[in-house]
């Protein structure tokens, strides 16, 4: 039998899926053990048990000075920035994408502009944002927005253009105005694509968020990681990294099931 026709059973799929995770964990545990055997004070690869202890301390013990549990405060601050940034971007992306995709006049005016703008490296203008908006929340949200909005606009306008022309013609023969066509045909048809595009842009959004938090902030997941780097606190860093990964994964999962639930007609390509 050819390899392309051999499929793992259900049980084998589960085992295979967990395999790389287990392999990475074992490799880390072995490496950590080897280093700790040579030097018990080693900070680079703390033992998994030490990380677990740190994690429990981080999520339960309040900060002595402020009385807050910093882990949750960081999480809340970061998620708020991320949510605001991604939400604003999605809204701009949707509106601009619809306008560019539907209206030839808007397309002629802005599609070239958006293509050029999307080439500006967002991190390169981070200093400008700090100068203009100060070091507060606005500049961090703005970096996320600037970082992912051009992608969202381009992707969504492309998706609108990919809607079969037949549907627009059909809507016109039913007497629909431009407004009705955008509200009742184009908008619902690109909504699953919007969620898909947001899911794809979550990776870059985290990147920009952590970058801006690393440079100037008082809380946030990225801030904490870069703060404890000074003390070589690998156990804290790894806890935060695992937590960020888990958050990103859960966000992705939530968006996917939201799309399935809201747009059952979209089928597999809407995921």
């Amino acid at each position: 039998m050819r390899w392309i026709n051999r499929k793992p059973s259900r049980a084998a799929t589960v085992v295979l899926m967990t395999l790389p995770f287990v392999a990475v964990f074992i490799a880390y545990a072995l490496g950590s053990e080897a280093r700790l055997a040579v030097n018990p004070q080693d900070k680079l690869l703390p033992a998994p048990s030490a990380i677990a202890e740190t994690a429990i301390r981080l999520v339960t013990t309040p900060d002595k000075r402020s009385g807050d549990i910093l882990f949750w405060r960081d999480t809340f601050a970061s998620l708020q920035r991320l949510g605001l940034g991604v939400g604003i971007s999605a809204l701009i992306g949707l509106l601009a994408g619809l306008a560019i995709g539907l209206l030839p006049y808007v397309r002629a005016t802005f599609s070239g502009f958006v293509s050029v703008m999307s080439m500006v490296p967002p991190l390169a203008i981070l200093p400008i944002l700090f100068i203009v908006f100060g070091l507060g929340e606005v500049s961090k949200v703005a970096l996320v927005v600037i970082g992912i909005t051009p992608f969202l606009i381009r992707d969504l306008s492309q998706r609108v253009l990919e809607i079969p022309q037949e549907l627009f013609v059909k809507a016109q023969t039913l007497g629909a105005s431009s407004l009705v066509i955008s509200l009742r045909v184009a908008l619902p048809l690109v909504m699953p694509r919007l969620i898909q595009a947001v899911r794809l842009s979550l990776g870059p959004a985290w990147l920009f968020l952590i970058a801006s938090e690393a440079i100037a902030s008082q809380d946030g997941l990225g801030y904490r990681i870069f703060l404890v780097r000074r003390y070589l606190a690998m156990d804290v860093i790894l806890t935060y990294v695992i937590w960020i990964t888990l958050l990103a994964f859960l966000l992705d999962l939530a968006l996917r099931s939201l799309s399935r639930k809201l747009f059952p007609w979209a089928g597999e390509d809407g995921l």
Partner: protein
Amino acid sequence: MSFVSVTSVSKYYGSRPILEHVNLEVSEGEFISLVGASGCGKSTFLRMLLDQERPTGGSITVDGRPLTGEPSQSRGIVFQRYSVFPHMSVRDNIIAASAFQTTYGWLRGAAKSQARRDADTALERIGLSHVADQYPAALSGGMQQRLAIAQAMAAKPRVLLLDEPFGALDPGTRLSMHAFLSDLRDETGMTVFMVTHDLEEGFKLGDRVLVFDKPRWDPQDPEAFGATITYDFDARDGGIPYQRLTEETHVLEPH
């Protein structure tokens, strides 16, 4: 005065002629089948009737008025694919015919329940009431096309344009769709243009069968000349012409 009038219409894509010197007069209520080889411009002709494309030269009038430059409610269309809205339930697809004419595309209150009742009546007629709440993707090809025709009819167009509506259906479904379309047409008496690849279908359903072909052919440059209507068959009475008296003969007239 004929209902649809096409006068020396030509269509070029760039410098390449697709259609040249097309003249046609159609009375209200006629069923016109358009046949011809692939790429002979019959679909282009249909799109010009729909006003999705404009002729390079000549003029088309419907009911004495020239076309406005964009598709409108007076001409309904059914395509081979993508004819219904995939994001709306079967019922909403029918309701769309009235909802889309409002400012924001949604009906409210009494108009909404009225449209819902009308849609349910229409679905009952076309035998789709059992799938009213499902999405079109769950329907078979024949059911989707029935829905598409019913949706186009719900907007009460004066002219119905069909672009190979049954091209993707299996032969059995095709036959039942023929019966469905014939019934619908007998009921409404609307003018129909249908592009088809199936000659038998064209003659079976049509009152007239128009053949699109190139009258001149340059073997060195096959694209030098455009197509036009080369034959205009009378397809009534089983395709046997001269079965009707068209002038006053004073013979055999019962008094």
